């Protein structure tokens, strides 16, 4: 009995389907629908707020009104599955990839993926970055066999569009808008060190190197992979930079 009623109430809250519940509500017709409508409005509006907080750049690109429309559609397709709303909306990027009304802005889905990577980095577990001396202690004959554990906050993002540039010019603090060449693909990563979330666009070589290392490849294999995509890949500098960025937590052979 109670479970059935709760199912019907969830349909009111998420979809404003009131008919099955009406016989259970006191009051005259019309008034009952209006009262149930309060729960629907509360639910949908609060979830739109959650999404607009999580996706400020996506919202800025399409405008508040369109964002609210796409958010409603997303909420219908993918209502929250857990009561921790800071985790709600992770699949908005994938949703936008298939959302016909947004196809005029072909980079929108990837912008949303980049924004979600920032949220995931922000809420990731704390970690201790790798002490570079541990790597120095490995002899040259073994260095190619080293594997890295990657920081839990590190997320790789790639797009056929210049999403890091688009993201940057859509920050409230950005005063100058440089010309963006929308034919430029960009790839990069988001991470968090200490309490700061940061992101960098990187060369294709570095991106493939990071991806291979994330997948558990040895340093040797990952470097070969990077060189295949970028003959100028500079292992020493890239490694130094990522040790400084706290990209790794531990090494193992």
């Amino acid at each position, binding site marked *: *009995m109670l*479970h059935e009623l*709760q199912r019907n*109430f969830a349909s009111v809250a998420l979809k404003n389907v009131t008919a099955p519940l009406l016989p259970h509500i*006191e009051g005259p017709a019309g008034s*009952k629908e209006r*009262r149930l409508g309060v729960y629907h409005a509360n639910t949908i509006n609060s979830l739109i707020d959650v999404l607009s907080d999580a996706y400020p750049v996506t919202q800025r690109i399409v405008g508040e009104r369109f964002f609210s429309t796409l958010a409603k559609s997303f909420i219908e397709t993918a209502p929250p599955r857990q009561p921790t709303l800071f985790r709600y909306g992770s699949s908005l990027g994938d949703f936008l990839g298939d959302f016909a009304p947004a196809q005029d802005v072909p980079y929108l889905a990837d912008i949303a993926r980049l924004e979600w990577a920032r949220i995931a980095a*922000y*809420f990731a577990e*704390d970690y201790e970055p790798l002490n570079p001396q541990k790597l120095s202690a490995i002899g040259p004959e073994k260095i190619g066999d080293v594997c890295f554990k990657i920081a839990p906050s590190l997320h790789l993002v790639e797009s056929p569009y210049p999403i890091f540039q688009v993201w940057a010019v859509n920050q409230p603090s950005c005063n100058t808008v440089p010309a963006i060449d929308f034919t430029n693909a960009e790839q990069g990563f988001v991470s968090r060190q200490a309490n700061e979330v940061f992101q960098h666009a990187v060369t294709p070589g570095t991106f493939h190197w990071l991806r291979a290392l994330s997948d558990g490849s040895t340093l040797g294999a990952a470097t070969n992979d990077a060189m295949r995509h970028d003959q100028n890949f500079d292992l020493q500098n890239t490694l130094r930079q990522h040790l400084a960025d706290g990209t790794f937590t531990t090494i193992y052979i």
Partner: protein
Amino acid sequence: MPPPSPQDPSTSSTRPSPIPAAAGVGLRHPHIAAFADGVAEATWVEIHSENFFAPGGPRMAQLDRVRKNYPISCHGVGLSLGTAEGLDQDHLRTLCRLVDRIDPILVSEHLSFSVVDNIYVNDLLPLPYTEEALEVVTRNIDQTQEALGRQILLENPSSYLTFTDSTFTECAFLSALVERTGCGLLLDVNNIYVSAQNNGIDAVAYLDGIPGNAVQEIHLAGHTVNGADDDRLLIDTHGDVIADPVWTLYEKTLNKIGPRPTLIEWDTNIPELNKLLAEAGKAQSRLDAISDNKGSTRVA
């Protein structure tokens, strides 16, 4: 009353002193830095538990700093104590971890449900007050209190409707839960007012039906008025100052049950910290007015 000073951080590893029967404020994102730095002049704060369910990151680090400066109460919005399908055990475990981490002075949740078929409806949906619902909520509170190893407080909901199915009044339902589970009550005076206005109930009679001894905390918040005449509905928005009739009902509550820790909730249109603290000041002056001078303002 002098402005309360933050606790000495050196004592932070010990349990904070009980929340005094003083006015605190809900800890919301725009103000968290002031509390982490210990510069906000507040006696205690309350968090929405689920906002701090992350395994790490800056927000959790800030919470640890807030905890060194102020007693904290954990107010849940997502456990769904009224859910007929049973509690989400992962959620309960994460709540236990949070409670272990910050050792809150109070833990509370709502008399409502929000989870059905593993979908989380982001609202506090009302329950019909039936024998079946009483059994469900009793089981869920028992399970929560057992997992936490401590008592929880249950908050009366704001409501926009009544169910034809109900066989208990809300007060009788709450009283039965207190009796069966040993839980305490968090009395939201704005919710009483909003529900009473919306559903044609006498708010003062409601107060008379509440077991005052079980009340360990009071909530106050702003609401908005939608429509007029027969279409008039009060909406529990937590987005404004507290309305005059709610202050009056609060005074009646204090006169009836005595001083209790009182929390100002302000969740939408969040104001400057000073404005929020000023609202807490108004509650404090009412608490002071009914308290004697012998330290009886402290409830354990």
